[in-house]
C-alpha cells in the first residue's frame, strides 16, 4: 500500500511551499503571496488558459518553458519562476497585445476606475503605445439582451462571459463569432441573451465590454459608497455589495460568499433597485411600484396623509376594539421583514394584542412547524449531497442561485439529481431521473419512492421510479429540496408528501425551497400558528393560518387584520374570497410599498424596505446574515421595530425594543437564536441556526474576479463591528422546535373526479412575476410573464389547437380566453400557467376564475 500524498512541495521564485495535489499553480502562488496577473482566469469557473497573461516559467525536462499558471496543476518538485526578465517580457507583451485594439475610451467607460485591464496597465504597462495602426471597429454598443449591452471594441476575448453563460448558467446564448482579431462575442440572430443570470457577465467582465442597461452612465465608481448586505428579493440570501451615490441606489454586486452565492446573482435581485428608490413621482397607492412615504388614514373613503401620531392612534383604536372580541384580531404577512422587525411584531401580536392568529405565509408556503421537525440541510450540503431530490417548481424561476448551485453539482461534479417534475424546469436537462407528476400526486410519489410500488393513475413509469429509488437508496447522503410547486394545489399535498419522505428516509436531510424574502426568518421569529420566536413551537396553542383568517374575516368573527406588507391580494390564490374578507374587516397595513390590498386599508403605516434598514435575515438553509441600510428611507417611513414599538406604546404597553440592536440582543439572549452576534459581524457569511460552529472563511476579495466591489478596509466595517461576540451573550434559551409527532394529522387529499375534458392546473412560479420587484423596476417590467396555457402535444391535439391559438378557459368562478402553447414538459392532463402572469390586456385573469376550495384546481378548455 502506498501513502496518498496530501501535499506536494513546489518552489516559486526560490521559495518552497506546500500545495495541494491538483491545485492550480495560480492559486498556490497567490496563497503564498505571489500574485500572477490574469484576465481569463476566474476562481468560480474552469480554467481555459486563453488570455496568456499568466505565463510563468516552469521547469520541464526540456528546460524552463513559459506556461499558463491558471491552467497548470502543481506537482511535486515543480520549480516556478514568476519574476524573471523572460516572464516579465512575455506578460508585458500580452498586455501590449490586449491594448493594441482596445479603444482606451476609459473616460466614457462605465468600468473606468474599477477596470482590471486599466489597473494592470497602470501597474505594469508601458506608458506609450507602439501601435500606430488603425484599430478594429465595431458598431458600439449593441443590445444583446434586455439588460446587457455589448461594446465589442472594448472586448479582450477572455471568454469569461461566454463561459459563464454556457458552463455556469447553462444558457449558451452568447458565443464567439468570427476569428482572428475580428473575433467577437455574439448572440444568435434569433435568440437574444435573455438568461436570468445575464447581469453576472457584466460583473465579471474584466473590461467595459459588457455594461448593464440600468447602471450605464449612472455613476463613476469612485463616487459610490458601499455596504455589504443580503439580497432579500428571494430567500436564497445572496450576499451583496450595495452601492449608492448619495441617497440614490446605483448598483448591487454579488459578493463571493462561499456557502451561498459564489459571487453570482440573478437579474431580479441585481436590477430591482428602482423598486426601492426609483418611483418617487408615483402617488397611486394601489400600484405596487409606489413607495408609501407618509402615514395614511382613510377619511370619507380615501386615504389621506396624516401625522404618525394620528395614524398610530387610529390603528391602535381599530386593533384594540377588535382585540376586545375573542379571535377578533389577526395578522397576515411579514416575510419582507427583518428578523428584528418580525420579532417586534410577534411581541406586539401575542404579547400586547393577545392573538394567536398570525401567519407570515399566504397559504402558498410550507408548514413552518413541519420544517422545524425536519433534519435540515444547508445549501452546501445540498450541493455536495450524494443525491439531490427536488420536489419544487422550476428552481431557476423560484430560487435562481440555488438552481446554479445544484446545476454546478450535477454538471461540474457529476452528482445525480432526481427531479420530481411538476412542470417545465431548467434542471430537467441535467437531472439523472425525472419523475413527471400531476397536481395532487406529490404524496403518491413520496409513498412510491419509499415502497417501490407504482401507484395507480400516475404518469411516471416503474422504470423511472426504480431508477430514482436506486439512486436514493436508504436516504443516507440524500437531500430533499422541498417547496410548493403549484399554488392551486392544497398545502396538504406537499405537507403529507414531506412527512412521508421524512419518515421513510430518516437519514435524509431537507432543504426548504420557500421563495419569499425572509419567510424563514419571519417564521423563526414566531410569525405563524403555534410558532414561537427562536424557531420554537408551542403545541398547546392554536391559531389560524392566513386562509383560515380570511375565512374568519368573511364570517365576521375576525374583525381586524394587521397586514404586514401590502401584497396579500397579489399572493393568495382565492383573490375573490380575499377581497370579500378584507372588505368585511378593519385593515391596518404596515408596508413600504403600495398594492391592490391598500384599497381595503383603513390605516397605512409606511415602513423602510430592503437597503434602508438594519437587521438580520434568515435564508432557506437557516443562515442568519446581516442586512444594512445604504440609503435613508423616503419621507417619514420607519423601520418596523420602531413602528411596532410605537404602536405598542399607543396600545398602552411596551415591547421593550427601543432599537434594532436591542431587538437583536433580546432575540439572542432570550432564545439563543443568532441575531446581535451576526449584526456585529455584518461583513461575514453569518451563521446557520443550530450550527453556530459552521463558519466558513471568506475568500479574500479578488478585484480581478469580481471587479467593482470595495474591500472592507476601504469602506470600513459595519457600525457595530466587533462590539459583541456570541460568547458574550448568556443564552437563556428554552425554545423547543416542533417534532413530527407534535403535528396534527394531514388534511384530505382526494382529488375530485372530473370529466375527461378537464385539465389539472399547475400554477407555477416565474421569476419575473407581477410582484413589487418587477413592477417597480422599469428594467424588469418588460420581462413580466405573459399568461399562456402550456399543454403537451396530446392535450393540444385533442383540443384541436396549435401554439398561439386562443382558447376558452372555464374554472369554478368563470371563463376567460387565453393563448395556448405546446410544451411537452407538462404532463398529460395538466395545463401549466405562470402565477402572477398577465394577459394581453395586462390583467391577472387566471386567479379570479379559481376558488381554491378543492385539493387541486381544474379547468375546461374549449377551442374557438
Amino acid at each position: 500500500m502506498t501513502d496518498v500524498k496530501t501535499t506536494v512541495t513546489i518552489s516559486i521564485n526560490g521559495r518552497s511551499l506546500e500545495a495541494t495535489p491538483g491545485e492550480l499553480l495560480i492559486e498556490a502562488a497567490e496563497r503564498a503571496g505571489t500574485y500572477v496577473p490574469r484576465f481569463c482566469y476566474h476562481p468560480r469557473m474552469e480554467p481555459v488558459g486563453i488570455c496568456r497573461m499568466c505565463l510563468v516559467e516552469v521547469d520541464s525536462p526540456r528546460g524552463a518553458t513559459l506556461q499558463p499558471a491558471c491552467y497548470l496543476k502543481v506537482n511535486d518538485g515543480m520549480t516556478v519562476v514568476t519574476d524573471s526578465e523572460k516572464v516579465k517580457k512575455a506578460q508585458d507583451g500580452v498586455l501590449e497585445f490586449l491594448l493594441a485594439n482596445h479603444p482606451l475610451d476609459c473616460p466614457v467607460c462605465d468600468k473606468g476606475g474599477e477596470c482590471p485591464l486599466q489597473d494592470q496597465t497602470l501597474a505594469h504597462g508601458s506608458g506609450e503605445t507602439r501601435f500606430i495602426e488603425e484599430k478594429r471597429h465595431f458598431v458600439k454598443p449593441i443590445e444583446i439582451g434586455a439588460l446587457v449591452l455589448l461594446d465589442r471594441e472594448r472586448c479582450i476575448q477572455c471568454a469569461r462571459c461566454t463561459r459563464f453563460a454556457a458552463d455556469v448558467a447553462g444558457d449558451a446564448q452568447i458565443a464567439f463569432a468570427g476569428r482572428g482579431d475580428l473575433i467577437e462575442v455574439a448572440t444568435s440572430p434569433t435568440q437574444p441573451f435573455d438568461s436570468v443570470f445575464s447581469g453576472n457577465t457584466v460583473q465579471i467582465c474584466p473590461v467595459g465590454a459588457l455594461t448593464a442597461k440600468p447602471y450605464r452612465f449612472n455613476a463613476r465608481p469612485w463616487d459610490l459608497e458601499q455596504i455589504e448586505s443580503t439580497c432579500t428579493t428571494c430567500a436564497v440570501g445572496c450576499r451583496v455589495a450595495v452601492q449608492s451615490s448619495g441617497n440614490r441606489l446605483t448598483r448591487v454586486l454579488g459578493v463571493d460568499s462561499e456557502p451561498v452565492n459564489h459571487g453570482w446573482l440573478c437579474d431580479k435581485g441585481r436590477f430591482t433597485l428602482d423598486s426601492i428608490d426609483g418611483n418617487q413621482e408615483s402617488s397611486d397607492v394601489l400600484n405596487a411600484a409606489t413607495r408609501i412615504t407618509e402615514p395614511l388614514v382613510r377619511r370619507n373613503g380615501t386615504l389621506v396623509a396624516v401625522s404618525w401620531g394620528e395614524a398610530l392612534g387610529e390603528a391602535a383604536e381599530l386593533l384594540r376594539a377588535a382585540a376586545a372580541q375573542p379571535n377578533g384580531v389577526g395578522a397576515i404577512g411579514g416575510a419582507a421583514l427583518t428578523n428584528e422587525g418580525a420579532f417586534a411584531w410577534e411581541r406586539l401580536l401575542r404579547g400586547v394584542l393577545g392573538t394567536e392568529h398570525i401567519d407570515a405565509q399566504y397559504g402558498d408556503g410550507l408548514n413552518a412547524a413541519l420544517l422545524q421537525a425536519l433534519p435540515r440541510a444547508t445549501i452546501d450540503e445540498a450541493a455536495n449531497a450524494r443525491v439531490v431530490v427536488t420536489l419544487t417548481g422550476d428552481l431557476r424561476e423560484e430560487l435562481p442561485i440555488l438552481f446554479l448551485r445544484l446545476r454546478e453539482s450535477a454538471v461540474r461534479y457529476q452528482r445525480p439529481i432526481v427531479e420530481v417534475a411538476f412542470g417545465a424546469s431548467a434542471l430537467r436537462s441535467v437531472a439523472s431521473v425525472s419523475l413527471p407528476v400531476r397536481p395532487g400526486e406529490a404524496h403518491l410519489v413520496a409513498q412510491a419512492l419509499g415502497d417501490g410500488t407504482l401507484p395507480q393513475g400516475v404518469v411516471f413509469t416503474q422504470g423511472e421510479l426504480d431508477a430514482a429509488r436506486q439512486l436514493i437508496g436508504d436516504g443516507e447522503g440524500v437531500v430533499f429540496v422541498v417547496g410548493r410547486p403549484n399554488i392551486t394545489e392544497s398545502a396538504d399535498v406537499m405537507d403529507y408528501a414531506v412527512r412521508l419522505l421524512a419518515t421513510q428516509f430518516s437519514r435524509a436531510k431537507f432543504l426548504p425551497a420557500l421563495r419569499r424574502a425572509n419567510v424563514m426568518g419571519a417564521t423563526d421569529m414566531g410569525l405563524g400558528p403555534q410558532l414561537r420566536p427562536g424557531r420554537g413551537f408551542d403545541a398547546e396553542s392554536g391559531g389560524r393560518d392566513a386562509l383560515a383568517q380570511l375565512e374568519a374575516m368573511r364570517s365576521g368573527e375576525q374583525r381586524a387584520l394587521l397586514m404586514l406588507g401590502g401584497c396579500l391580494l397579489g399572493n393568495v390564490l382565492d383573490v375573490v374570497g380575499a377581497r370579500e374578507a378584507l372588505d368585511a374587516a378593519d385593515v391596518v397595513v404596515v408596508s413600504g410599498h403600495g398594492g391592490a390590498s391598500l384599497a381595503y386599508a383603513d390605516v397605512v403605516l409606511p415602513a423602510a424596505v430592503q437597503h434602508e434598514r438594519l437587521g438580520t435575515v434568515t435564508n432557506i438553509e437557516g443562515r442568519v446574515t446581516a442586512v444594512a441600510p445604504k440609503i435613508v428611507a423616503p419621507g417619514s417611513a420607519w423601520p418596523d421595530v420602531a413602528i411596532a414599538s410605537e404602536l405598542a406604546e399607543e396600545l398602552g404597553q411596551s415591547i421593550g425594543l427601543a432599537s434594532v440592536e436591542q431587538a437583536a440582543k433580546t432575540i439572542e439572549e432570550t432564545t439563543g437564536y443568532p441575531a446581535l452576534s451576526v449584526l456585529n459581524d455584518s461583513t461575514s457569511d453569518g451563521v446557520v441556526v443550530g450550527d453556530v460552529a459552521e463558519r466558513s472563511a471568506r475568500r479574500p476579495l479578488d478585484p480581478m474576479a469580481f471587479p467593482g466591489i470595495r474591500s472592507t478596509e476601504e469602506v470600513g466595517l459595519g457600525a457595530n463591528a466587533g462590539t459583541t461576540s456570541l460568547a458574550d451573550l448568556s443564552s437563556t434559551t428554552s425554545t423547543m422546535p416542533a417534532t413530527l409527532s407534535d403535528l396534527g394529522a394531514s388534511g384530505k387529499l382526494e382529488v375530485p373526479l372530473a370529466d375527461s375534458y378537464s385539465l389539472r392546473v399547475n400554477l407555477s412560479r416565474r421569476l419575473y412575476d407581477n410582484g413589487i420587484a418587477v413592477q417597480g423596476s422599469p428594467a424588469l417590467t418588460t420581462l413580466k410573464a405573459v399568461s399562456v396555457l402550456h399543454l403537451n402535444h396530446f392535450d393540444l391535439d385533442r383540443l384541436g389547437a396549435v401554439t398561439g391559438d386562443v382558447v376558452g378557459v372555464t374554472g369554478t368562478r368563470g371563463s376567460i380566453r387565453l393563448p395556448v402553447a405546446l410544451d411537452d414538459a407538462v404532463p398529460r392532463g395538466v395545463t401549466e400557467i405562470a402565477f402572477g402572469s398577465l394577459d394581453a390586456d395586462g390583467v391577472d385573469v387566471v386567479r379570479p376564475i379559481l376558488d381554491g376550495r378543492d385539493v387541486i384546481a381544474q379547468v375546461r378548455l374549449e377551442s374557438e
Partner: protein
Amino acid sequence: MATLEAPRIVTARLEYEDSHTLARFLATGGYDGLRKALSMHPEEVALEVDKASLLGRGGAGFPAGRKWSMLRKSQLAYLVVNGDESEPATFKDHLLLERDPNEVIEGIIISAYALQVNQVFLFLRGEFALGLERVQQAVNDAYQQGALGSKIFGSDFSLDIVVHPGAGAYICGDETGLLEALEGKRGFPRIKPPFFPAVSGFYGEPTVVNNVETMANIPWIVVHGGDAFAALGAGRSTGTRLFALAGRVKNPGVFEIEMVKNTFRDLIYDPALGGGLLDGRTIKAFMPGGASAPWFAPEQLDVPLGQDEVAEQHSMLGSGSVVVFDDTTCVVRAAWRITKFFARESCGQCTPCREGSGWVERVMYRMENGGGRMEDLDLLLDLCDNIAPGLTWPPQQTTICPLGPSIPSPITSAISMFRDEFVQHVQLGGCPFD
C-alpha cells in the same frame, strides 16, 4: 540529378486518366492490401506500419506506428482522418483525394482494422468540391463492394466511414481544432493537457488522427511489407513522399520522390521534376516546408529532403510544400501575404496569436505600401519575439496550438535574409518591385 528509381507508392495509379474510378482501382490491385490485412492479425498489420517507420505526412512528422500504439484501450475509439489541407501552396492531399480516393479509403479501412476501431470520420476541407464528391463516391463504392459496412469481405471486422466537410477554417487542420469542429463546436484547438487525442480525443474517447497521405501509404506497406518501405529513404525519413512544388519554377506540381536520397536542388531543378526556374531568373530563396517554415537561402539547395536533415538547418519539411522565390519576388510582399493568411486564420483564442498576427500584418502591409518606418524592423522582430519568445527554432510555443509560433517565420526569415530590401521599401516609400 534526382534519384527517381523508387517505386510510386501513393501515385502509381495517377498515370491513368480514370485513376479515381472504381474500375481502374480494381484493375490495378485495389483492395489487395485490405484483403491481405484482413488475413493478418490486427497487431501484425500495425507491426508492419511500425516497421515501415512511416512518419506522419501532415506536417509534424510523428511516427504513425507510435501514434497507433498510444491509442488508449477502450470499448469506444475512433480514427479521424485529417483532410483539411488549407495552407497556401500545400496541395498534395488535394491531388490524392481527387485522383485516387479509393486508395485513401483502402488505407483508412486497413488502419481502422489495425486499430480495431469501427467508426472513422474523414474530415475534408469544405472547399474541395470535386474531392468531396469523389471521396464520397469511393466510400459508397466500398460499401457496395463489401469493403465497408458490417463483416468486411466476410471477416468479423465492421467499419463505417463518415465524410465530414469542413466549414472553411484553416485552424481545423490542427487535430484538436478538427475534433472540436467534428463535435459540432467552434474550431478552437484544445489546451493541453490532455496531450494526445489517442488518450482523450473525439468526445473524450481515444482517437487516432492521421493525415490523408499517411493513409494512402498503408495499402502499399501491407502488400509489400514494412521492411520494403523502410528500405527506401534514409535515417528516420523512410519511403517516398509527396512534395508540392510551387513558385517561380517551370514545372510546378506534386511529385512523389524518395526521401533523403533527393535534395531541394533535385526537386526544383531536375527536368523530370520542377525543371528549374523560369528562363533568365535566379533563385532568391525558398520555403522548404510550408507557410510556417523558416525560409532557406540558395546555399541550402543541397540539403536532403529528410525530416531531420531539414531540422538540422533550423527549418522543417512540414507539409511538403516547397515554394521558390526568384529575383523578381518582393520578399516583403511575400512575407506580408503569408502573415495575412495567419492573421485571417488565427482562431482568436490566445492573445499573442490573435492580436500579434493582426498587428504584424498591418505593419507589413504598411511597409509594402509605402508607410514603412525604420523602427518598424525592430518593432516587427520584437512583436514576433512576444509571440514566440526567443525566436528560436523550433519555436517556444506560448499559445495553445502551433499557429501562434508559426507567425514569426516568414517575417523573421525575410528580415534576417533581406534586411536591405526592407530598408529599400522604407527609403523609397514603396515597393521597389512595383
